[in-house]
């Protein structure tokens, strides 16, 4: 078994590797985690992710800017790629699947990718449609994968309007589906106006909201089934 001391040291290493955007250090620490037989979930959540949370704070405080944020995300993935095959079971209370993409006409996908990363580490099944995604594709993919959640991203006010159509189409087919939108021009007002369930200011918030939404969706499904059973 790993000693608590060693565990703490490795978690600190993973965290610092992400904060100091050092891919090599992240890989090294992840290898060491496996070598000493430490729990991979623990390493991901209390090491890599807590580093990213710290980075998020630094970004908000304008200590870090976009390049640092991206390099930190790369370092996180460097560690995650090594640890992920060894993850037994994520237990976040809920597990869900999510369709995510940047809407047609928009090629900006940095924000979308960071949100995707948070879903990845949280153990969601992620169906990533990429960027500049034709509007009909979202509904198609949601039906195909029976996902609980659809996340739309747009960086420009001109492409943002496409989200309204996607939301309307999804609602028509499946009124219970949860929809989140995000991106620079998006605000709570826009989310309300378009009929989205959630709007995410940043990746950490997106994950929190998503877990709540999927939780409530699962509950609704359970209740509906319980009704039917009666």
């Amino acid at each position, binding site marked *: 078994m790993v000693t608590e001391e060693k565990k703490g040291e490795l978690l600190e290493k993973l965290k610092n590797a992400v904060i*100091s955007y*050092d891919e090599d250090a992240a890989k090294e620490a992840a290898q060491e985690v496996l070598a000493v037989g430490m729990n991979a979930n623990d390493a991901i959540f209390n090491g890599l992710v807590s580093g990213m949370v710290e980075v998020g704070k630094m970004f908000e405080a304008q200590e870090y*800017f*976009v*390049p*640092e944020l*991206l*390099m930190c*995300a*790369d370092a996180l*993935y460097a560690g995650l790629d090594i640890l992920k095959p060894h993850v037994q079971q994520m237990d976040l209370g809920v597990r869900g699947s999510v369709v995510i993409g940047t809407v047609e006409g928009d090629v900006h996908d*940095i924000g979308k*990718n*960071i949100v995707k990363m948070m879903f990845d580490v949280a153990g969601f099944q992620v169906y990533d449609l990429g960027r500049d995604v034709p509007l009909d594709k979202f509904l198609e993919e949601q039906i195909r994968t029976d996902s609980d959640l659809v996340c739309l991203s747009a960086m420009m006010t001109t492409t943002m309007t496409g989200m309204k159509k996607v939301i309307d189409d999804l609602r028509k087919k499946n009124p219970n589906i949860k929809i989140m939108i995000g991106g620079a021009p998006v605000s709570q007002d826009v989310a309300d106006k378009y009929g989205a369930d959630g709007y995410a200011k940043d990746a950490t918030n997106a994950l929190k909201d998503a877990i709540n939404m999927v939780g409530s969706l699962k509950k609704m499904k359970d209740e509906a089934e319980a009704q039917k059973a009666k």
Partner: protein
Amino acid sequence: MNVGIREELLGQGAAVVGYAVLTGHLGAEIAHLDRAVSIGVARRLNEDTLGILARLQQRVVRRLKAQGYRTLAVPADSDRKRDTFVSKLYALFNHKMAATSAGIGWVGKNGLLISPEHGPRLSLTTVLTDAPLAADPPFAASRCGACTLCRDHCPSGAITGSEWSRSDPYVELVRLGECRGHKAAGRQLAGKPNCGLCITVCPYGRKNAELSRCG
């Protein structure tokens, strides 16, 4: 601050190293990293140039980070395959701009960075940072002079013969479509896209070259 980086890199395989201040020349996302270490490696055949560049970059990054500065290592243009988050930002940046700003050379009529000692035979990479590096004197104008060897030898006629200067950096030097078309045709015909005549004929950095027309 921080001499020592240059010496270290020159001892590890770099042909030229320069420091630049790029304030006002960078996109908003990377504007806070306005100092650059521009690194050139002399191209040799059968040598892992990209590997050398990456290792040199890493030395700079480690050194600056150890002193508490931020860094962004932008890989060489021919080394951008990796699908990483940060690779999205590379398009915002131009190695030649950093190299001319760092006094390594000018942009020749063939559109390539020309150094007085090595000619167009350098592979470039850059580390951006917020460390207060003292800048080397930048190149303000081309030193190609009356020389038109590259234009005369270009098989696709892509080289316009215009001259670069810092005050007019957007003048068209090479009609890129024609250069690319020629290389694509070469690939179909010979299996190799290589052309490189404009590098071969450049008198700067070439042995026994006649520099009288250059200036």
